[in-house]
């Protein structure tokens, strides 16, 4: 995905194939020869980790679908059948259920890394927007996946979230009926959610290809946030990035395994082990942890339509980030003020997540409103103002200099930068 390759396989058979379908050359130029900035830190390993997560979800998901029954009467039972009677079914299901959470942990780190180092800025706007689309697809997939076990939270979560669309004036109720396939969350809803839950990951895989394509076209951003200027600034993807990504990925797997094998139900909700009952509403309907910040924003606004718009707006705003933050300097390392506001923003998001899990009453509502207001102020006021008023620190002359120091560079490189 990074232009023509001069890759020449040694074997005559591969040479024959390569002349007809240069797929090895494509792989070679994308994942072997591809130049990566030499100053990338471990925050840059999450792209590879996310690809791993997607792979795990698709493989475990396909196996689960072989044993799962998408019916109102059979869904809960079939999940328990997987847990009890399918060989290693408990492992496959716990990997899939916790895998969703791991996917979101990785994606949130990946997004915040992009925000910190200004990875959305020129020329990476489309790369960034594809990322926002991937995030939305992930949210839709995860939401529908959580409905499939047909426990109490599945059912009531589906009811609450689909009902949000009824807030839209005029067409709202029609949209909700269309989503449900009837007049309430029922068999048609479960069955179409299963179908879409199987479809969306492959759409994600497709957009991932676009995302990687766009990345390889413009090149990776880096902690210094400056462009690659000479060969000295980069290292080939293999073995450098491959080795670093592998180590990070294995560490991530240890974290993942900790949850799967020792606390597999920690990230889930106990109520989802109660079979869905349309006649009994749980005391607190709480979405999965990765939706909590947005759930808090939804409930912070006193009007239903306002809440829905604020919630979707809070995600949509991300797509406009390249145009809200007009500062020329990319990396927060050289933006002293922006860096502080970045951390305040992180705390705001964590705070919203915590509030999303709390009942919507008393002080929680007030706190949610303050943090919601700050979330929007950060994007709509702070970032545009900072672009004008902030005085960035001087940037290093080159990536190589930022890593190796001035003295480590040969004179020729010094002269060229």
């Amino acid at each position, binding site marked *: 995905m990074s232009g023509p390759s001069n890759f020449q396989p040694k074997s005559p058979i591969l040479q024959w194939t390569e002349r007809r379908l240069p797929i090895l050359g494509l792989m070679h130029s994308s994942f072997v020869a591809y130049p990566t900035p030499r100053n990338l830190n471990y925050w840059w390993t999450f792209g590879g980790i996310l690809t791993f997560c997607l792979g795990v979800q698709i493989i475990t998901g396909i196996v689960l679908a072989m044993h799962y029954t998408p019916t109102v009467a059979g869904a809960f039972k079939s999940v328990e059948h997987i847990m009890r009677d399918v060989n290693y079914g*408990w492992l496959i299901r716990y990997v899939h259920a916790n895998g969703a959470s791991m996917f979101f942990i990785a994606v949130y780190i990946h997004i915040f890394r992009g925000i910190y180092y200004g990875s959305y800025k020129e020329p990476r706007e489309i790369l960034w927007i594809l990322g926002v689309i991937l995030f939305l697809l992930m949210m839709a997939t995860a939401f529908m996946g959580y409905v499939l076990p047909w426990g109490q939270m599945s059912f009531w979560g589906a009811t609450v979230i689909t009902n949000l669309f009824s807030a839209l004036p005029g067409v709202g109720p029609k949209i909700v009926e269309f989503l449900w396939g009837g007049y309430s969350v029922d068999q048609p809803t479960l069955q179409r959610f299963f179908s879409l839950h199987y479809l969306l990951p492959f759409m994600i895989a497709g957009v991932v290809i676009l995302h990687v394509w766009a990345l390889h076209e413009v090149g990776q951003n880096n902690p210094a946030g400056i462009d690659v200027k000479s060969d000295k600034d980069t290292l080939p993807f293999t073995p450098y990035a491959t080795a670093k990504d592998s180590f990070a990925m294995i560490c991530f797997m240890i974290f993942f395994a900790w949850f799967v094998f020792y606390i597999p139900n920690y990230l889930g909700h106990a109520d989802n082990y109660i079979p869905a009952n349309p006649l009994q509403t749980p005391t607190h309907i709480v979405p999965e942890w990765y939706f909590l910040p947005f759930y808090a924003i939804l409930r912070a606004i006193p009007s239903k339509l306002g809440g829905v718009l604020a919630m979707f707006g809070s995600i949509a705003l991300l797509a406009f980030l390249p145009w809200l933050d007009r500062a020329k300097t990319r990396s927060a390392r050289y933006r002293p003020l922006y860096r502080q506001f970045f951390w305040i923003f992180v705390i705001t998001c964590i705070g919203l997540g915590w509030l999303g899990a709390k009942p919507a009453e008393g002080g929680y509502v007030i706190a949610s409103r*303050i*943090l919601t207001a700050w979330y929007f102020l950060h994007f709509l006021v702070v970032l545009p103002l900072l672009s004008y008023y902030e005085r960035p620190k001087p940037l290093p002359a080159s990536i190589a200099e930022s890593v190796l120091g001035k003295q480590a560079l040969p004179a020729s490189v010094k002269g060229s930068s």
Partner: protein
Amino acid sequence: MNKNTLLALGIASALSVASASAVFAADAHAPQPPRQSWSFSGPFGKFDKAQLQRGFKVYREVCQACHSMNLVAFRTLGQPGALGFTEGQIKTIAAEYQITDGPNDSGEMFQRPGRASDFFPPIYPNEQAARATHNGAFPVDLSVIAKARTFEVGFPGFLIDIVRQYQENGVDYLHALLTGYSEPPAGETLSPGQHWNKFFPGHKIAMTPPLDKDRVEYTDGTPQTVDQYARDVTAFLMWAAEPHLEARKRIGFQVMIFLIVFAGLAYFTKKKIWANAH
């Protein structure tokens, strides 16, 4: 720049005060169930087979009067990491239950003694029948109850639990519930069919106190107390909810060892490759 730092800090502290005030808004309704020590907790946890068998006895002689367990098959009582019953014992246990089967050649449903491959049968023909018997209350199925109940741990305990691998909130709650019956405090009135329970959300529970001292006979000398019964039956219910718990923890340890060694190798490989790059 100093002024800016102050401004940023000011905003940050305003936000944290806002969140802190929210903490105080939380009202403590039901008390937190005390944490018990369970043989199956922790990375090397295993079920205590004798305890599971005692718990099963309590289930059969007490709980089973109202509560079904129909996701559990008799055959699973003898699988690895379970109660340790032999094939013969399981056949005997299964045969004590009547299973509705059919239709037969004349189109009738019929009753037959249970087989190892059967699941624990329902107690009532349907939910309405159960409610009619129990003054409107519905005795829930207990197959996954140990995972279907929990309580809120709060900050920072819920984070510490990740590190401690503590996932026994469900069983702690069940044990607390079974031992939490008492007379209602002054000023609280119970309507007929209600009982006071310290740990039940809302405190008014329809289930009659199920356990009494010496109600179930233990032959291995284990004390026949309410606390012990509650502990044993809860452990059994944990097994029922998570029959592969032992295999999960055993395989988990193998996976961990493998991954940690692998990570070590990957780290030194990375270090060697990058030695001259920065």
